[in-house]
């Protein structure tokens, strides 16, 4: 037997870098930061959902001394958010497209004064008709009525219509999801500080410093060297702090430059929920043809997202949504038609999963219905139809011979004893007090940016050799990836420590500052560990080689050497400690030494953006959840009791952090499945407080068993794939399928509530 000893930190439960300062209350979030002579900003918002601005009236009875007002006329640069589609203004100057859209800004010495001043500015707006309700959008769409689309995209493989004609059974169903709120516990916040050179420093809660920085340059008409963006400790993002912080940073910067003072805006919870991004509501229709033996002959998916007033990130949310809409199962003839509808609501945006949770709610509910339609069990149907090596996805990406899908599916079925327990489902037929059901969801998440995203952004990251705070040598990570709770600081340190073969306490990872770090891309898309980790590994290896050459030349008379576990060892057995060598290197070269690397996609990667064909992602992470639920027969109260989760995220860099990501994402998914709901009334989100937007608490959590199956990414030294979003994707359909088998009724729109179950039982049928 061969014993493999694993050296290094990757694979070990290294304690979090940032845990101790957080647990002691010492971590400085933006709300904790105060600047000298700091003022507070507030936003003047449109009172109507759609209209044309005819003027801004200032209340003459209000004391305007000591208040700074910014209107669109004060914007020195371009009043448009660059993003992907240049359609959203920072401040609406002519047309307002949603209720609450910013039209002007104020700053004053106190928060109270700023809010009073904002309330004293009355926008005069000529109202025109507005479209706000998701239900109305779906009704119009199904009736073939007129809607404005922010984006459309189709995926076509083979001939879906022909495939459907050849089917013996055709199943057509519609699936719905509503708005959902990220509900990071730290609200959005930003501070802008004017600089002596006419530039600005912006610090705050954000996922993507290099989204904010170029937006500010364009808005303020400043060159990049005069705009510095720095991350403060982030109290959760989940996508909510991906694109929105660019707006808030812009507002603070405009006020700071006009007032000549530091200006801070930290939202209260109500403003945060009402006027920041939500998960796109969706309507998805699957029409699927089957043979009698339960093979899929043809597949048509219509995928509709509700985008709100501006496109912002909707094109890429849609891309991820349609790629995941019919993924995982063999079928040669598929068409997926995706559209994003424009409405008069705040722009929908990034939220963990980014289109995939909507896709999998529909897909994995539907696959259960396909199994039922051909008289098969849900596990049998999936085992028969999942991809085999050499198959292609809907975009034509080849599935490798070895991939994680079959392994996670089999393992989850085995660990949960699905087959045996499935026979015990109540199906709403037993007279016991509690109905029992078990259900599964099989799903994945493309790791990294969609399509040519990674090729275009060319993520860069660096490591520097410098003197640490205590005088010894430090390896400093320079990357724009942000720590927002997911553990990036810790896992990237583990990866760099391993690449260099030095003790991890020598590796530092300060919060990103655009003055100091290269653009590693945004901290989104489950890409940090996989993509930025791979880049940092390469950068660290370059540093290691340079150090080895230096030691070889200066200490070992030209004899070759290797750095292992913090020690340089020569071929003849001479050795030198890393600390000594690194300090000498710094003294000799006289400056900090920086080693930078760039991400490259797997060799042969091809993507056709026009036709949406090719390798949609560098790789995929796969998972299977088996959910077990109980429903109280008298009240229909729903209790998830156990989730068996099996995931392939490639090499697991830190098992404790990875498990924490799964538990947390899964619980967010349970919230999405059972309780989180934002209605729309008069153009505003109805659940505007934590009292009305209910998320899971400590008493709502089932037993969660997490198991990892490692199928490493073959094109990087770390082997890590994406993790962050995957755990949310499958929770809702697993729970929904379990509920179907408990109650005997299927609910097609999220969240599944006792009220919906009651109506379905009354109607003696599944609910739409």
């Amino acid at each position, binding site marked *: 037997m061969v014993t493999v000893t694993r050296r290094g930190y990757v694979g070990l*439960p290294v*304690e*979090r870098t*940032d*845990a*101790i300062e*957080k*647990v*002691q*209350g*010492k*971590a*400085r*979030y933006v*709300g*904790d930061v105060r600047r000298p002579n700091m003022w507070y900003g*507030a*936003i*003047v*918002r449109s009172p109507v959902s759609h209209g044309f601005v005819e003027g801004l009236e200032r209340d003459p009875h209000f004391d305007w001394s000591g208040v700074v007002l910014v209107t669109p006329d004060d914007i020195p640069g371009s009043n448009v958010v660059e993003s992907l589609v240049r359609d959203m203004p920072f401040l609406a100057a002519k047309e307002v497209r949603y209720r*609450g859209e910013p039209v002007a800004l104020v700053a004053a010495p106190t*928060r*109270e004064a700023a*809010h*009073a001043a*904002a*309330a004293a500015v009355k926008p005069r707006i000529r109202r025109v008709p507005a479209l706000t309700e998701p239900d109305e959008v779906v009704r119009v769409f199904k009736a073939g009525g007129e809607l404005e689309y922010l984006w459309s995209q189709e995926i076509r493989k083979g001939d879906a219509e022909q495939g459907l004609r050849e089917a013996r059974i055709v199943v057509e169903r519609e699936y719905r999801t509503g708005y959902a709120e*990220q*509900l*990071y*516990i*730290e*609200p959005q916040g930003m501070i802008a500080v004017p600089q002596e050179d006419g530039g600005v420093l912006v610090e705050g809660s954000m996922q993507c410093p290099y989204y904010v920085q170029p937006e500010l340059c364009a808005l303020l008409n400043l060159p990049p060297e005069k705009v510095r963006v720095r991350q403060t400790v*982030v*109290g*959760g993002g*989940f996508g909510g702090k991906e694109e929105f912080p660019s707006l808030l940073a812009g507002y603070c910067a405009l006020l700071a430059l006009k007032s000549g003072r530091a200006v801070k805006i930290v939202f*209260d*919870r*109500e*403003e945060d929920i009402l006027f920041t991004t939500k998960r796109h509501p969706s309507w998805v229709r699957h029409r699927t043809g089957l043979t009698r033996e339960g093979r899929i002959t043809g597949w048509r998916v219509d995928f509709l997202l509700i985008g709100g007033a501006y496109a912002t990130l909707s094109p890429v949310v849609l891309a991820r949504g349609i790629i995941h809409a019919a993924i995982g199962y063999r079928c040669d003839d598929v068409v997926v038609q995706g559209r994003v509808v424009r409405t008069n609501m705040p722009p929908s945006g990034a939220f963990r999963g980014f289109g995939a949770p909507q896709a999998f709610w529909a897909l994995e509910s539907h696959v259960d219905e396909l199994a039922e339609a051909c008289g098969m069990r849900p596990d049998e149907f999936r085992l028969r139809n999942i991809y085999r090596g050499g198959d292609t996805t809907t975009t034509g990406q080849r599935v490798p011979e070895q991939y994680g899908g079959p392994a996670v599916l089999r393992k989850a079925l085995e660990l949960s004893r699905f087959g045996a327990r499935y026979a015990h489902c109540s199906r709403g037929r037993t007279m016991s007090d509690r109905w029992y059901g078990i259900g599964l969801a099989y799903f994945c998440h493309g790791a990294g940016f969609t399509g040519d995203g990674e090729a275009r952004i060319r993520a860069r990251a660096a490591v520097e050799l410098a003197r640490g705070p205590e005088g010894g040598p430090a390896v400093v990570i320079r990357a724009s990836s942000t720590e927002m*709770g*997911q553990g990036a600081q810790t896992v990237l340190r583990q990866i760099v420590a391993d690449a260099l073969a030095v003790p991890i306490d020598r590796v530092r990872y300060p919060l990103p500052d655009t003055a100091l770090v290269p653009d590693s891309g945004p901290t989104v898309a489950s890409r940090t560990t996989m993509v930025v980790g791979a880049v940092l590994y390469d950068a660290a290896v370059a540093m290691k080689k340079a150090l080895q050459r230096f030691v070889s030349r200066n200490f070992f008379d030209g004899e070759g050497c290797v750095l292992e576990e913090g020690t340089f060892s020569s071929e003849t057995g001479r050795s030198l400690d890393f600390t000594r060598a690194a300090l000498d290197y710094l003294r000799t070269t006289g400056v900090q030494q920086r080693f930078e690397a760039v991400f490259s996609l797997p060799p042969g990667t091809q993507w056709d953006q026009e036709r949406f064909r090719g390798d949609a992602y560098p790789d995929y992470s796969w998972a299977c959840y088996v959910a077990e639920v109980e429903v109280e027969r008298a009240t229909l109260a729903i209790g998830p009791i156990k989730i068996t989760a099996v995931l392939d995220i490639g090499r697991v860099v830190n098992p*404790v952090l990875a*498990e*924490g990501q799964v*538990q*947390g994402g*899964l*619980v*967010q998914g349970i919230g999405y499945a059972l309780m989180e709901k934002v209605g729309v009334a008069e153009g505003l989100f109805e659940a505007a*407080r*934590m009292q009305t937007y209910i*998320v*899971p*608490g*400590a*008493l709502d*959590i089932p037993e*969660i068993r997490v198991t990892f199956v490692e199928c490493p990414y073959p094109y990087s030294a770390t082997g890590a794939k994406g993790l962050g979003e995957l755990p949310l994707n499958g929770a809702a359909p697993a729970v929904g399928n379990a509920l179907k088998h408990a109650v005997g009724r299927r609910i097609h729109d999220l969240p599944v509530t006792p009220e919906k179950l009651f109506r379905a039982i009354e109607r003696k049928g599944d609910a739409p």
Partner: protein
Amino acid sequence: MNGEPARENAPAEDWIRRTWLVNGREVSLRVPPLRRVLDILREELGLTGAKEGCGEGECGACTVLVDDQPVCACLLVAAQLPNRSRILTIEGLSAMEEGRILEEAYVEAGAVQCGFCIPGMVMASYALLRRNSAPTERQIREALAGNICRCTGYVKIVEAVGRAAERMGRAAAGR
């Protein structure tokens, strides 16, 4: 939607004087009677460990102990706290042995992610362990039901509190 409740616009002559024991130290202040205790802690006393997540007592991120009872500092105004009230915040708890044990357990269990809820969570944990040194898992979940965490799914937090309880029990037995 731009309206903020005017919390603190009381004329100066209506301000009240209060003397409290904050983390064991006597603190005297003159404040508007409706100023929230959370703002006093964070802004006047520089104790920023208690966080504001919702401002309406739902999230528990501002949990502090007042006379040993866990309360949301965002729901409490100065006038409600009589003189000699004892306030314990995360900064005070950190300096205590029980605090050190709890913090260590949180870190080891991997119970911290974004960390914004954590000071409040630790305060609620401490309040539980003060009155029940050997809680069941169910009792831990009940004690933390008023503290929302969006990152962890609570699993490791519950583990951390269980771990801390064991260690405090051992520490007490060894004394």
